[in-house]
């Protein structure tokens, strides 16, 4: 027996590596969907579970992976990489992790392909399942949705780690030696975020201040687009991805404890979406150390995988002569993935709902049920009032307020930085010095004028009625449905009405009066000079 890999072993190994790569991508992307994954164990082999693990296949992800691989396999210098990045609703993006499936030159010629390599690849996938929950990006991905989304990108070739910033850490998931090289699976992840509590994302602070190091222009412009990592169930109209050229092969493994001896291997391939499962191709090749048989599997629903179970044997201690296995019926139907096809188009970089395009909504404390997406009105146009939501609430009259204010209208604005308003209250738009507070009729959505009563100097100054403010979320406050909450209190507290004694009108008035009345007062005092003198003398 020569030490070179037999052609059958080579074929098997290539197949294992290919499907291992596809399953790796599935595990990584599914771990960043933001949802808890749950698959069922099945005691009887179902015919489509590679590596004896129930890992669902999201069609779009498989499609992308196959596209990236383009028929090649990971080899020395050609690694398959899955890049996970975060993209905020502002459009800023940041690479979080790079998962690399690499091959190096260190070969293990002695290892049995169909048995040991297969089982070790299965173990490596389990390790990947565990490790994907442990890196910082997992917790971020569980909280994605409103402020940011997680995107993935698959590329093949050289690993590009420069986007991860300085001081990134690596974790090795594991290695599997094969006769053609050693497969290594590892992850390099950014650690800047590790020090940032994920709670900050819940409070929506200005994300700009947190992204320390990111490239907006990628140093290596890549041809593969980014894809979002989450999707809405049911939104897709069942788009079926075109079947890729090679068939969707499936695998049921069967192992043998017989020693290696004369054996026979038959393979059946069935193509995607061909109707009845058929044996289209049978090949019998004598192979050392392996025993195979095939049988057509009863197959499933819709675009479910079709294929064949392959039975393997590993040479072991029992001294039984090799036997061919008759085509018994394999139980069960391959599990059809419950998750529908990807909810958004795969071809362009896009954020999925609720953040389509560049729209975003400012969730406000007083109208959390009614957030609407309004287009970005940074140009300063007077927004169409019907786009704005208004909530009206009664404002309590404080002491010393001379004019009772009956109502204050709040308008919720969708302006740039609305989400980050506590830090951006000093925006030029809102500075009354730059943009004098407007009279209420215009009700410009952008004028975050902090009116105070009477300061405008206008007539009777009921300018308070339409009180246009930037909406903001103060720290530690929740999105409450109640109109009176910390945010509202804060707003009011910031703009108390003027004390009546300090109002300019009255002040001005009294001074004028004082001046006028001065000569009279002087005359009166002069009359009483003698009394004053007597008084002074008593004091001395």
């Amino acid at each position, binding site marked *: 027996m020569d030490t070179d890999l037999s052609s059958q072993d080579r074929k098997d190994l290539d197949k294992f590596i290919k499907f291992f790569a596809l399953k790796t991508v599935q595990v990584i992307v599914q771990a960043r969907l933001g949802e808890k*994954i*749950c*698959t069922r164990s099945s005691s009887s082999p179902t015919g489509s579970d590679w590596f*004896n693990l129930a890992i669902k296949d999201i069609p779009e992800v498989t499609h992308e992976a196959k596209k990236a691989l383009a028929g090649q396999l990971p080899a020395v210098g050609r690694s398959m990489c899955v890049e996970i990045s975060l993209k905020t609703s502002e459009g800023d993006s940041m690479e979080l992790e790079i998962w690399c499936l690499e091959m190096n030159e260190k070969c293990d010629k002695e290892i049995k392909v169909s048995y040991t390599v297969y089982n070790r690849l299965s173990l490596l996938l389990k390790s990947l399942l*565990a490790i994907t*929950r442990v890196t910082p990006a997992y917790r971020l991905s569980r909280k994605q949705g409103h402020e940011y989304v997680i995107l993935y990108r698959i590329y093949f070739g050289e690993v590009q780690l420069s986007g991860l910033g300085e001081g990134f850490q690596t974790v090795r*998931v594991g290695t599997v030696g094969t006769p053609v090289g050693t497969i290594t699976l590892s992850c390099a992840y950014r650690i800047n975020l590790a020090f940032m509590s994920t709670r900050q994302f819940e409070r929506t602070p200005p994300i700009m201040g947190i992204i320390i190091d990111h490239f907006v222009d990628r140093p290596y412009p890549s041809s593969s687009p980014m894809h979002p990592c989450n999707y809405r169930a049911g939104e897709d109209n069942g788009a079926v991805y075109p079947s890729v050229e090679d068939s969707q092969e499936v695998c049921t493994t069967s*192992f043998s404890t017989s020693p290696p001896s004369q054996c026979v291997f038959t393979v059946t391939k069935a193509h995607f979406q061909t109707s009845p499962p058929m044996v289209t191709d049978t090949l019998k090749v004598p192979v050392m150390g392996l025993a195979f048989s095939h049988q057509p599997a009863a197959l499933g629903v819709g675009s479910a995988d079709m294929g064949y179970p392959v039975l393997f044997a590993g040479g072991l201690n029992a001294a039984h002569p090799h*036997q061919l*296995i008759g085509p018994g019926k394999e139980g069960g139907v391959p599990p059809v993935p419950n998750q529908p096809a990807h909810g958004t188009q795969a071809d362009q970089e896009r954020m999925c709902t609720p953040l389509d395009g560049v729209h975003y909504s400012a969730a406000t404390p007083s109208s959390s049920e009614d957030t609407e997406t309004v287009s970005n009105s940074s140009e300063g146009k007077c927004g169409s009032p019907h786009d704005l939501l208004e909530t009206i609430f009664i404002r309590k009259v404080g002491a010393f307020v001379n004019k009772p204010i009956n109502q204050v209208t709040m308008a919720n604005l969708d302006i740039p930085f609305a989400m980050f308003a506590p830090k951006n209250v000093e925006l030029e738009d809102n500075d009354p010095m730059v943009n004098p507070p407007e009279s209420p009729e215009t009700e410009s959505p952008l004028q975050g004028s902090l009116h105070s009563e009477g300061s405008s100097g206008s007539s009777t100054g009921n300018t308070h009625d339409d009180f246009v403010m930037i909406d903001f979320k103060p720290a530690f406050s929740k999105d409450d449905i109640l109109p009176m909450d910390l945010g509202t209190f804060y707003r009011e507290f910031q703009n108390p009405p003027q004390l009546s004694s300090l109002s300019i009108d009255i002040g001005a008035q009294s001074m004028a009066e004082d001046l006028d009345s001065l000569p009279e007062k002087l005359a009166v005092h002069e009359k009483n000079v003698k009394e004053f003198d007597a008084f002074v003398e008593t004091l001395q």
Partner: protein
Amino acid sequence: MVGPGRSRCCGPSGAAPAMNCRAEVLEVSVEGRQVEEAMLAVLHTILLHRSTGKFHYKKEGTYSIGTVGTQDVDCDFIDFAYVRVSSEELDRALRKAVGEFKDALRGSGSDGMGQISLEFYQKKKSRWPFSDECIPWELWTIKVNVVNLANEQERQICREKVGEKLCEKIINIVEVMNRHEYLPKMPTQSEVDNVFDTSLKDVQPYLYKISYQITDSLGTSVTTTMRRLIKDTLAL
């Protein structure tokens, strides 16, 4: 906290299994209410790697393997999530063992220090009247130190810190698993119960037993509460 310590019992690697049991030690410091989740996270992660699908033996010498499903578990008292095998029976068995450990830790005579061990073993049939031998081939020991916290702020910090520590432990476990060291040979049908626990209906872990010890305040394990959850003796 110390990372995994490695020690080998006598014998070179590749020798007969009786001579070669690798031992790994993990240490964690947790708050009382975190004990259960932390132990389950570690034990489930180990068992995920040490479980296969159910074997179905066919005509002599060949077998097929069922499928192992997985599911995510979020911890309530720790900022942490882990993956476990989708098997309610296995989860129940682990929860029972961890529950007993937790109760023992809380009990009197304990200053909050203890350890729980997960041992994988093979059975070697002996002739009557000798009972079967259990030969361990891998031993995981998790040392636990229970801390008491004073206020809510400390608890919050502890949530995060323990979550980070558990992440490190998972990485350590995975590192050990991927060394691809000794694993029992795949058994024939007659031998399968000597290697695997075949009592579960959906998955098949290697034969394992869980035991624990509580150290009292003197630091010695005077109360050696060695409760064994040995499935085979129960079957007998």
